[in-house]
């Protein structure tokens, strides 16, 4: 009885009930809400879109590609929510030369088609947006950059996105991935700064930027491409941070990497580590504990 009382009280709490019922929702709804929030805040406060045609184009290409390919692949049109998330993410992340629209169309097609083409054991290996952005940066650095609008470098906007992001990550059950990556980033880049004799603050500064907000809340926590099991997820998050630190170390040393690695080391680290981890995960079978 003594144990039952707090449980009952908790269950009467509408916040707890909403939290529990929310956790039964398809996590993509929570993620879609968060990405929409980011978009709306960024546009209302900083006019960061530049123009609405890129948003319309990215969403149209993503959803049309998803509808078409799922029809061919499965004989039915699947839920288009993840295509919506990819479309918004690409709109936020891609910053083209001269206001060109084609990167949004190509990016949208690359993102969604990667889910249907680059598969292993009926699973796609790359987070679609991560794949598209990494591919565009590698193939067309003269034409595409990422997120040159910085949400004003403003602590208020940062806080809003981080608070909502952390809450939703907790609801979706991936908070440990976000926290592990952020902790690893801070630790490893502090060590890198010390090893290279560089000031610490510039090395940990990137984690406060919007590119990383999108990265930690929408890419490395993508429910469809993360590995199974909490321990494996934590391990992979650490490995991504390690890979990113190595890329940054190479950039510090001036090694001749493709520009994409200098520009978006986190994205490239995930693009390299994520699929390998997923491949191993699919080969190993489900872990005993989650």
């Amino acid at each position, binding site marked *: 009885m003594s144990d039952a009382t707090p449980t009952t009280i908790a269950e009467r709490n509408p916040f707890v009930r909403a939290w529990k019922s929310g956790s039964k929702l398809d996590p993509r709804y929570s993620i879609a809400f968060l990405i929409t929030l980011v978009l709306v805040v960024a546009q209302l406060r900083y006019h960061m879109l530049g123009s609405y045609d890129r948003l319309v184009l990215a969403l149209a290409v993503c959803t049309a590609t998803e509808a078409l390919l799922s029809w061919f692949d499965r004989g039915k049109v699947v839920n288009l929510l993840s295509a919506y998330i990819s479309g918004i993410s690409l709109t936020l992340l891609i910053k083209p030369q001269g206001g060109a629209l084609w990167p949004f169309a190509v990016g949208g097609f690359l993102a969604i088609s990667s889910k249907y083409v680059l598969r292993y054991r009926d699973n796609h290996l790359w987070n679609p947006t991560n794949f598209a952005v990494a591919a565009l940066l590698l193939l067309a650095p003269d034409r*595409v950059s990422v997120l040159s609008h910085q949400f004003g470098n403003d602590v208020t906007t940062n806080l809003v996105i981080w608070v909502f992001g952390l809450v939703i990550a907790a609801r979706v059950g991936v908070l440990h991935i976000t926290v592990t990556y952020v902790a690893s980033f801070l630790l490893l880049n502090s060590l890198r700064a010390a090893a290279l004799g560089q000031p610490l603050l510039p090395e940990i500064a990137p984690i406060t930027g919007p590119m990383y907000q999108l990265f930690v809340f929408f890419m490395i926590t993508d429910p469809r491409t993360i590995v199974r099991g909490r321990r494996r997820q934590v391990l992979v998050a650490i490995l991504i941070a390690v890979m990113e630190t190595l890329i940054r170390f190479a950039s510090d040393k001036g090694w001749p990497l493709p520009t994409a690695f200098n520009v978006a080391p986190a994205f490239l680290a995930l693009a390299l580590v994520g699929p390998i981890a997923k491949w191993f995960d699919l080969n190993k079978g489900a872990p005993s504990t989650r």
Partner: protein
Amino acid sequence: MIRNVEPHVAALGASVSVADFDGDGKPDLYFTNSRFGEPNALYRNRGDGTFEDLAAAAGLANLNRPGEGVSMGAVWGDFENDGREDVLVYRYGYLALFKNIDGRHFQDVTVQAGLHRWVNSNGAIWLDYDRDGLLDLYVTAYFRDIDLWHLGTTKIMHNSFEFATNGGKNLLFHNLGNGKFEDVTDKMGVGSTRWSLAAASADFNGDGWPDIYLANDYGPEELYLNDHGRRFVLTTAGLESESKSGMAVALGDAFNRGRLDAFVTNISERGYLFQNNNLRLNEMLEAHRFRNVAEGEIADAGWGWGAQFGDFNNDGANELFVANGFISADREKNYWYSMSKIAGANARFFEDAATWPPFGNASLSGYERSRVYINRGVAGWVDVAAKVGVTDVYDGRAVALADLSSRGAVDVIVANQNQPAVVYRDYPDSTNHWIGFTLVGTRSNRSAIGAEVLLESGDLKQRRIVDGGSGFASQNDRRVHFGLGAREWVDRIVISWPSGTRQVLLHPPIDRFVAVTEPTR
């Protein structure tokens, strides 16, 4: 205290302005230098393709002194309407106003004029905002009004890379007509603190009153509309939607619509950042806004600086010259990667200069090639710099245009940071015709600064303005030049003088400069 960012902070000081300071009818050149102890140069145009530096004798050379600051630019105008061009030198330091005594010598009248103010300025323009016939002065401010050589804090940088508001306060000085100026910044509502790098003035909305257009670093452009000389109203005009790094603003009729459009340079760097230049069409009359139509090549000129519209081939359409490149140092070291660490971060990581990664000897968008854009119609604005012989890779800053030999050509003068100046002599198509105008104000300021000239010749309609300062730290030849292509006549010229007077000339002679004096009533 800020040695780690010194190459960045000290990289904005090369200017050139054009003025006929000795009244011999030939445009002369004034270059400023931003290094302590180094002289500015006043090059008198001998008229035979050579120049002589008279700055020392004129009293305009030794202006870069500890305690007073270093020159960042100069802007010429006859503020007393005595027929001689005076000059304001703006510095990272005290403003300095020099009265032209006799066409050879200048007297420092800063204190008497009430302009002894410390402003870390990269730009200033003359305009007659209240149409009283006297040139007023608008000074842009970059860093806030601190002595950069005796800092009490290292927290001097911008508080956002794209929406910064902690720059110096721009200032508007009203010319009282007795050799004195009055600070009317707050009264007129033009005290932007958005790290302004450049300003230009024209009557954008056609109401007869000169407005002010600002190119702001780390932020969106701003347009202050002049409400009948009583106050200025900051309007969005479609400019607020793209926050960028405005470096310069050039005015010109981009598509021969009889309007003055604005071209604003920004920063683009492969893979890292495409802020894209803006070519903003003036649609103020019908839509109360400017519309950005920069696409393709014209949008990306690297790290763009000074720019100017000019009809270099006299075909009747404007081309566009853009100088670029920020810091050319070690080719093997690129600061962009370091910059990317802090540029997206929270402001507290870069507002303090001490937290910036050290520059060392790294380049930052160095060794970039200047651009010359020609309008190819459907193909858009295409860069033809290499084809027309513009090949330098200096760190270009100011660009000024002048017909140095008064032969119907638009020569280009570029001031480069830490590198020699370059003069590109223009060789227009010899079969094309042209016409130029030398305007003298009577009811308006004598320099005719702000006068707008509309040319109509058959299907050609084009507007130009007498320049009171534009681009980045530059000022063009006060004479206005139109290319006519194969057209052998001009139907009419409409001059809108700053006083409000409208003057019409029918069938003026072509292939020469035409002197026009403002009607006195």
